[in-house]
């Protein structure tokens, strides 16, 4: 009896959970993911133009929030064909071998000023790193947006040709704004 009770409760809980916080697809057209790298002191901002993702976030239960982003590494667009060809090479993104970068977040921890910290994992070029990502959540009738920026080391993901060592800095700033349309 007790077991059935528990099973029922779990089932009910997950139904109510899915009613209020179903997994929803992001709207890539209203989302941006850009990387800012620095060459000879010059900050260069370039977007990833192709990515998909799903977010499961019940504002009442931030600790249970989940998100997955799949980013097409070959969609990194510096705005110049020569640059784009260079950054696709094996020394950099190696887009032929690693066409996708994946970011998964599990759980939002409340931080200062109403923002959150997401515990995340970034898999890029066959390497995975744990990241703490600051996230600002804004919700209105149209949907929710999740934005923030973090600094990563490109070398931690073995990205970069030694010939460019003195030209391109190790630290790269990732800026993102992910929009999830509201359920209708």
């Amino acid at each position, binding site marked *: 009896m007790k077991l059935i009770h528990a099973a029922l409760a779990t089932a009910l809980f997950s139904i109510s959970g899915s009613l209020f916080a179903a997994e929803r697809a992001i709207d890539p057209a209203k989302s941006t993911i850009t990387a800012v790298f620095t060459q000879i*002191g010059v900050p260069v901002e370039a977007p990833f133009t192709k990515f998909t993702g799903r977010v499961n976030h019940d504002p009442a239960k931030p600790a249970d929030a989940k998100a997955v982003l799949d980013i097409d590494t070959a969609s990194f667009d510096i*705005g110049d064909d020569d640059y784009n060809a*260079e950054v696709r090479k094996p020394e950099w993104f190696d887009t032929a071998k690693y066409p996708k970068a994946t970011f998964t977040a599990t759980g939002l921890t409340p931080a200062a000023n109403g923002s959150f910290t997401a515990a995340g994992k970034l898999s890029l070029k066959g390497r995975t790193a744990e990241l703490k990502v600051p996230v600002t959540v804004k919700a209105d009738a149209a949907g929710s947006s999740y934005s923030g920026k973090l600094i990563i080391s490109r070398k931690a993901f073995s990205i970069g040709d030694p010939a460019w060592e003195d*030209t391109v800095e190790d630290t790269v700033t990732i800026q993102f704004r992910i929009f999830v349309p509201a359920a209708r």
Partner: protein
Amino acid sequence: MSNLRAASDRYTATAITLHWLIAGLIVGGFAMGLYMTGLKLSPDKLKLYSWHKWSGMTVLALAALRIVWRWTHPAPPPLPGQPRWQLQAAHYAHLALYVLIVAIPLSGWLYSSASGYPVVYFGIKALQLPDLVAKNKELAKSLKEVHEILNWTMAALVTVHAGAAVKHHLIDRDGTLARMLPWARRPNTAKST
């Protein structure tokens, strides 16, 4: 002070220094510009682009100084015995050169901004110059052409300018070139100091 300078038949040491600094930088910057654009993408190419931009921004700063200096310290009057057309041609050529030493670095700065690459003077982050326009591929393409046309105009004018100076020196055998040369001695120092 400025009256004394105007009466002198030589440019001031400051004017001479600015003239030759700018001349060196524009010849160097022009040569770099011609060479670097044909290179395949490499760290060296980006270094050349950086040096090109730094020299251009230095020209812009020196040009501003030079215009202020010229304003407050009039150039020595042209040597007598020249035809009127020649004086006028020289006047307008000099005016155009002044315009170009400002317009060319500015067009380069605009082009860099439109291409999405801020100009960071000497690669020092605190010396990052503001973007003059937002990133815009179409605008960048037009500005590239403007930058090139202005540069070839400059190259033509500099050729005429230098050719005229040599003609004054070798054919007319007057002191026009000498008064802009750093090592030429002032013939009548007694009068001006």
